[in-house]
């Protein structure tokens, strides 16, 4: 660790995302997932945490359609969606939905993680409709 920066706690999560996996801290004592990452389990305060891979499955909790580019990198993507996705393990993540038009987005729709290759060789987390799901 380089210090007390919150980014240090999140580094394994971020590194895994760039490789195409979602990992989060699971408590060895009570099993609860802590996200965003930190020095202890948010439920029981145990410091015994193990990085665990999430299934990538979840549901669409809420979404936004941006029509304004707050950063030039998004100017050619308008209008684009951003969703709050509730993972089946519990935590909620922000990510875009792909494989569905903005008009097709529905609260509660079943989603699965899909990692998109980026120009720098890393991957970006997105979710797509989970057509295999009963949801």
């Amino acid at each position, binding site marked *: 660790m380089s210090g007390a920066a919150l980014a240090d706690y*999140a580094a394994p999560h*971020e590194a895994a995302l760039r490789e195409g996996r979602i990992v989060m801290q699971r408590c060895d004592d009570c099993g609860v997932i802590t*996200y*965003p990452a930190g020095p202890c389990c*948010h439920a029981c305060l145990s410091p015994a945490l193990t990085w665990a891979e999430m299934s990538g499955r979840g549901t669409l*909790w*809420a*979404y*936004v*359609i*941006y*029509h*304004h580019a*707050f*950063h030039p990198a*998004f100017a050619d*993507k308008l*209008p*684009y969606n*951003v969703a*709050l996705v509730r993972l089946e393990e*519990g*935590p*909620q*993540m*922000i*990510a*875009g939905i792909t494989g569905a038009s903005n008009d097709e987005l529905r*609260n509660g729709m079943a989603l699965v993680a899909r990692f998109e290759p980026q120009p720098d060789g890393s991957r*970006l*987390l997105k979710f797509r409709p989970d057509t295999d799901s009963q949801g």
Partner: protein
Amino acid sequence: MSRITNPLRNKVAIVAAHATMQGKHPDRSAWDLGVEAYRGALASSGIAPARIDGLLTQTANGGQMDPSRFGQMVGLDPKVTGALTYGTAFFSIAYAAALISSGQASVVACVYATNQRSHGFANPADQIPANERHGFFSAAGFAALGYQRYLHEYGRTADVDKLGAVAISQRAFARLNPIAFRRDPMSWDDYLQDRWIAWPLRRSDICLITDGGVALILADANLAADLVDQPVHLLGLGRQDALGGLARGDNLLIPQMRATATQLYERTGLGPGDVDNLQIQDAHASVILHTLENYGFCGAGEALDFIQDGRIGPGGPLPVNSGGGQLSEGYMVGWLHQVEAFRQLRGEAGERQTSNCRIAQFCATGGAREYSGSLLYGTGAVAEMLL
């Protein structure tokens, strides 16, 4: 059943409130705007600077409004000096009330000023860059997620445009407020032609950024009547936070406000039906919906209908943000709402005066929906009645 007590009953009053013109002040520092507000609060109340024994500031962009430096600037040697960072006027008022009710200070000046419109706005340190790579920007993102979820939960997605009643009502009030930044008329046509920023929110649903300053002076309620003619009494407060943020739990509709409401109303023996003038810290128009419902001004899922037909506008039965709010008056993170409540309860609000205004309520929440706080204010007659 244990009797609920109100620790702030007859403890604290606002004795002065002053706001600068809101808008663009490119040649002025936050310090300068803060001094103007402070000077105005003293001048309008006749309170001598020597009476100030507590100084609280809310720090602003670029490290401005540090309380020690501000106190040095205006020649104060108070008993207590303190600061709270970016957030809401609620924090400073609750802090001042704690200082006064515990006897640490008796007359506390609270000052906030910023020149963030002209000189840039530093985001709080807890912004998550991880979300920005997905294009999730600005506190408007949180509010838009909340409004979308709201529309879904109550089956009102087809009525998304009805939110316009908030911006239109508040603009109508701002047109009656000489210090408001946006005073041009806004019709339904204007609103509906306005562009989406983050659907379901339009530009008009999102707060302004302005330069300006506000100063409040709070005093021990027993001193208040000796200091000024018409003190405005703090009747009580409530506060409940929810720190799971977006990552954990269901905080989008700010449900912790319900616990805040229960605290506030039980402590004071008052309820939403007693409120003559409602002040809601409106980072976004949709916060009005969540606040009206969670505090019980209307039922869950009813707010989009409740706000129609001028009900929350000038002359309506429940004036909301009668100074114009952060959508039209200026963006002082809830500070201007205190000035407006103070003026309304003293009958000094001119053309936008709420008739027979005896009780006002302020409700705060943050852009990331992590806290909620609320205050009830009353005239001297109301405070006496509650004794």
